[in-house]
């Protein structure tokens, strides 16, 4: 393996050098605790404020509406548990979808065991919710709609503006997991009527282990982590100072580069899709054809299994991901692929290749050249392929 081609930007991204450069002084020199009143503390506090401001600007929020967390999962847990426990006298009903990230889904399942009722909305073959189903699901017990902005597996972007408007009209809190959307889509929390929004640094070329929850002023929410007075008494724990600084810089860069980022990743995506569809039969592209993340490609190759596909790619230095059960260590293939109506068989053959700022055209061409050979090799080994050989199918 002479080169490594990373096509798993949806899983995580490298930290950009400019981001790391901003972080570095905060490890060894400007290392103060932002809660301290001495000079080390004050310079730390100021750096946190700058980062908070950058993130607020990136989503059209006010500084004091941004709360740093230890990542996207913590933000999701906090938003959901925080809202439902703070508002449980109003109702016990939550609405979400079948294709949420596990941080939302497992939190909802946990709450179901603790007296809350959850409606899991269906999605169509493209992964889109049905706004009418959502409308009908709202009852006078509904306290929260938590509905992801863009899906991490198949890239489908939901009609967030319509959902936000509906939530506002029906006076239900609206949380969206925008971990995948942020940095790939222009987001203004006011235009979209979002009450809470989860974001995470490591998906936008910032560091792992830091995220944020946007909480609209006035939203009634409990703390998830109790303790010190950090984050305006809402999220305890010494701030991850370099992480926060890096997140702020990454968010700023993401906004500055948004257009070029989208153009770059979408054009490589289109090249990849076309290249593979031209060369391989019995393959499907998952997700919505138009309303989708620019860098996400999700193929379903029939007759073969995703992990063996990934391993074969990995031997050539190409890094991708799969919704196959074998890669997640669970018994079933991805809940997202099942929700869009794929059979088990086809869901197992899924391959997600996600493109980012460092992806080059030649990387894509290499994949277009190698992937069909791998698919063919695995199909030759597959007992499921026998039946269709020679085009009988």
């Amino acid at each position, binding site marked *: 393996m002479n080169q490594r081609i990373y096509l798993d930007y949806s899983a995580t991204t490298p930290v950009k050098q400019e981001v790391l450069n901003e972080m570095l002084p905060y490890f060894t020199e400007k290392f103060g605790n932002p809660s301290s009143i001495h000079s080390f503390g004050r310079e730390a506090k100021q750096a946190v404020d700058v980062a908070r401001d950058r993130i607020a600007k990136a989503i059209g929020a006010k500084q004091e509406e941004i709360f740093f967390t230890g990542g996207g999962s913590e933000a999701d847990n906090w938003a959901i548990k925080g809202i439902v426990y703070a508002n449980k006298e109003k109702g016990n009903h939550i609405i979400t979808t079948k294709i949420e990230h596990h941080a939302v889904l497992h939190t909802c399942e946990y709450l179901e065991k603790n007296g809350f009722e959850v409606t899991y909305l269906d999605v169509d073959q493209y992964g889109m919710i049905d706004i009418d189903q959502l409308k009908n699901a709202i009852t006078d017990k509904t306290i929260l709609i938590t509905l992801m902005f863009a899906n991490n597996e198949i890239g489908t972007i939901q009609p967030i503006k319509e959902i936000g408007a509906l939530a506002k009209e029906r006076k239900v809190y609206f949380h969206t997991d925008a971990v995948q959307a942020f940095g790939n889509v222009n987001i203004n929390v006011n235009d979209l009527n979002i009450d809470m929004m989860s974001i995470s640094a490591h998906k936008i070329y910032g560091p792992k282990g830091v995220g944020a929850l946007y909480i609209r002023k006035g939203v009634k929410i409990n703390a998830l982590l109790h303790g010190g007075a950090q984050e305006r008494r809402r999220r305890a724990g010494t701030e991850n100072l370099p992480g926060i600084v890096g997140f702020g810089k990454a968010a700023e860069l993401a906004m500055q580069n948004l257009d070029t980022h989208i153009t770059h990743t979408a054009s490589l995506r289109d090249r990849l899709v076309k290249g593979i569809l031209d060369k391989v039969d019995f393959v499907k592209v998952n997700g919505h054809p138009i309303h989708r993340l620019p860098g996400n490609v999700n193929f379903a190759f029939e007759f073969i299994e995703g*992990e063996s596909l990934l*391993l074969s790619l990995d031997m050539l230095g190409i890094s991708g991901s799969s919704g196959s059960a074998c890669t997640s260590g669970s018994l079933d293939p991805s809940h997202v692929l099942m929700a869009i109506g794929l059979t*088990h068989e086809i869901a197992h053959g899924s391959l997600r290749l996600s493109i980012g700022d460092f992806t080059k055209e030649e990387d894509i061409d290499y994949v277009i050249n190698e992937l069909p050979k791998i698919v063919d090799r695995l199909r030759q*080994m*597959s007992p*499921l392929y026998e039946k269709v050989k020679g085009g009988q199918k």
Partner: protein
Amino acid sequence: MYSEKVMDHFMNPRNVGEIENADGVGQVGNVKCGDIMKMYLKIEDDVIVDVKFKTFGCGSAIATSSIATEMIKGKTIQDALKLTNRAVVEALDGLPAQKVHCSVLAEQAVKSALFDYAQKRNIVLEGLEDFKPDEDHHDHEEEHE
């Protein structure tokens, strides 16, 4: 994650293919779980003279199939029936805990093909008296805590 041995058998699987007019054919696993192994045997004088497989599944499913064919090729039926999943795992220098079920599947694929052979010949093989070819041998030994 995987040993070199596993990766070798995954990337260069031995005995891939089909045998026309095989003396025994066995298929185990199901698409739901994402592993299907199909094994073909050519048997002469109680000796497995040729064996081929086709597998739909993850890297370790392919590797266990491959090494299992190597381990029974040229062996008598009685010796082949002694193949255990543990022996398969050892021959591959180990498997991750959540992949051990693939070795069980490989053992069962061999047994299933031999069972088919026995049925065609209308004989009963010692060790396969209670074998149920349609049983789900697919046992994911997961660590759920």
